[in-house]
């Protein structure tokens, strides 16, 4: 950041030196021109005798006299402009060149100042030649002076804050950082580094912890190029991944970009979402597997039994599944004895939800839980897994 800042200062120095030199030379020239014009005009008004000028259009001026007087005035003006050593112009020569049609001095001048002078009530044109040479030492002095100034700025002053820097400092101030802290943290980063995509911003918002003072680490993480391309859902998964395995960005990125999949391993009695293990006890897992099988084999809807009348058919389905995969004997016995009770089914869905939210969080978990609707008979509720069948993989 400082190197770039110094490069920028060098360019500004060059540009400013050039501009200031041009401005000083131009302004100095104009200032001298105006002063010379004023002084010479006043002098001519007082001293240029009207008797040498014609009174009308068909009268000519006394050329000889005007030439003689013009030469005398030029001699008097020999040292009219005295330039000091620090002036942008030097060696200024002022000469009367022409009075009306009478040529006084033929030497070419860099600038010709034209003034109008009333003599015998007729306006006379007077040309004053002004030739000054640029004082290059001043240009050199300007360059050196500005160079020193900019070198001092580059060495002793911190680089100025960009708009992005100021925004981030404000961001940190709003979150309780002190001004010095915020400045110290933000000044380390180039402005492009601080330009975050919405996804990165969301990610940072979620991971940044003022107490943990983790802004630099989080910023380091979210500015990874893999993060910039994530969509909103993927960012949620990334955050989940980083929360479950702090500091392991590649693993979190793997989770964020993984295919959406629910895997139910009935042999190992394990449930995983996008490869992320969701600890769940055996009975709820078998209930989850039962709903998943229903989703895979059809529309997935399973109607809740009436609260006062257990469903023996659904109970038998579950007994069959539990028996095959070593379900709890007590649960099997109850199902065999009374059928599937609404209360039991609700308790297990609730348990599944708790376990799923514990791992995936409130935001991500619902996509793998249940959706509900009224049975077409208008009396009973029915439930199914929200996740689509093609994303469900059951190992048995």
């Amino acid at each position, binding site marked *: 950041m400082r190197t770039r800042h110094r490069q920028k200062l060098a360019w500004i120095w060059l540009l400013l030196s050039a501009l200031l030199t041009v401005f000083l030379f131009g302004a100095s020239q104009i200032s001298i021109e105006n002063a010379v014009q004023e*002084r010479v005009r006043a002098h001519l008004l007082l*001293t240029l005798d009207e*008797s040498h000028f014609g009174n009308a259009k068909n009268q000519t001026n006394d050329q*000889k006299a005007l030439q003689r007087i013009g030469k005398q005035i030029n001699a008097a003006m020999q040292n*009219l*402009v005295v330039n000091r050593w620090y002036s*942008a112009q030097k060696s200024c020569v002022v000469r009367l060149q022409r009075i009306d049609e009478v040529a006084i001095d033929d030497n070419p001048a860099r600038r010709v100042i034209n003034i109008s002078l009333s003599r015998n009530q007729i306006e006379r044109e007077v040309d004053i030649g002004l030739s000054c040479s640029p004082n290059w030492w001043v240009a050199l002095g300007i360059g050196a002076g500005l160079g020193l100034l900019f070198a001092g700025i580059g060495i002793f002053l911190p680089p100025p804050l960009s708009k992005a820097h100021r925004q981030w400092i404000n961001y940190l101030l709003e979150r309780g950082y002190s001004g010095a802290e915020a400045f110290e943290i933000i000044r380390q980063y180039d402005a492009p580094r601080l330009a975050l995509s919405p996804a990165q911003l969301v990610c940072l918002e979620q991971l940044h912890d003022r107490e943990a003072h983790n802004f630099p680490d989080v910023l380091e993480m979210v500015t990874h190029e893999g993060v910039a391309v994530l969509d909103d859902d993927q960012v949620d998964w990334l955050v989940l991944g980083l929360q479950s395995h702090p500091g392991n960005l590649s693993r979190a990125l793997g989770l964020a970009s993984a295919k959406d999949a629910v895997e139910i391993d009935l042999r190992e009695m394990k449930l995983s979402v996008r490869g992320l293990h969701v600890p769940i006890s055996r009975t709820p897992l078998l209930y989850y597997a039962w709903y998943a099988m229903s989703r895979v084999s059809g529309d997935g809807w399973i109607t809740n039994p009436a609260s006062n009348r257990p469903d023996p058919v659904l109970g038998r389905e579950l007994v069959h599944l539990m028996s095959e995969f070593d379900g709890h004997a007590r649960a099997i016995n109850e199902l065999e004895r009374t059928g599937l009770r609404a209360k039991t089914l609700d308790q297990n869905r609730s348990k599944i939800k708790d376990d799923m939210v514990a791992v995936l969080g409130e935001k991500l978990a619902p996509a793998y839980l249940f959706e509900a609707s009224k049975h077409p008979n208008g009396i009973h509720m029915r439930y199914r897994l929200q996740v689509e069948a093609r994303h469900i993989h059951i190992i048995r």
Partner: protein
Amino acid sequence: MLYGAAFFVTLALGWFVVDCGYEIQQLEVRDYNIRRCDIVANSSGPVLRVLDAIYMEDPDLVNTWCQTPEIARHFGALELRSVHRDHLDLRVLYESRYDLVLAKPELINSVGQAGKDAIDYELIAQYSDYGSQLVALQSIPELSASWMKGKTLGLLDDPNSVSAYQIPRAALHRSGLTDEPGIIYFRSYRELYKALFEGQVDIIPALLSDEGPDSALQLPPGLVLEETIPGPAWYLHRELTQGPAYCDLLAALAESARNSKFDYFRKIRIVRPCYAD
């Protein structure tokens, strides 16, 4: 804030360099019509002030007089002011601001109408009478509409000039030449002559005098309009006519006349001789 301060410091320095980097010297207000020479040998002496009221404008006159020992004996410097008659402020004569005046007698006479003592100047020397004529390079001018048709006449831009303004205009008027010829006015005799030789005008009024072939005033024969016009004269302030400088001034005048480029100005007549003579 620091950048702002740096900006203002730079601005102030810039303004200082632009505005205080130079100084325009005062130009002494002086009369450029005055030509002056200092006489080193007598630097503490008074200044001899000479008024040329016929606008002879002889640049050599000042130097010639400064080198004249007779002048150097009495004066420390010489100032000569040549003035166009139509811009002459007569107060300078009433108030005796000049020691020596070269003027046409009619001018001094008009100033001195109240009597001999109206002004303190005395005639000491005079050039001979002269005439006025119209001159053209190709042929002798004629005061007729047919001859003047399409021609341009140059006149001296000075209504006080008898020979080069009053007489030619009167002649044209008498001849009924109101539209032809066209007239251009010039501020000096020198430019009048130059305009004729450069073809800017076809006719000019010229001095009728016995100029020799080498004189700058020598012109082809012309149409004589008037033969006797009193010549210009030198008038000296009365105080100087009484002092020891008078004889030397007369000698200087005579010396100056002898050295003149023009035959006419070589013929000077001393009207009031030196008492020593």
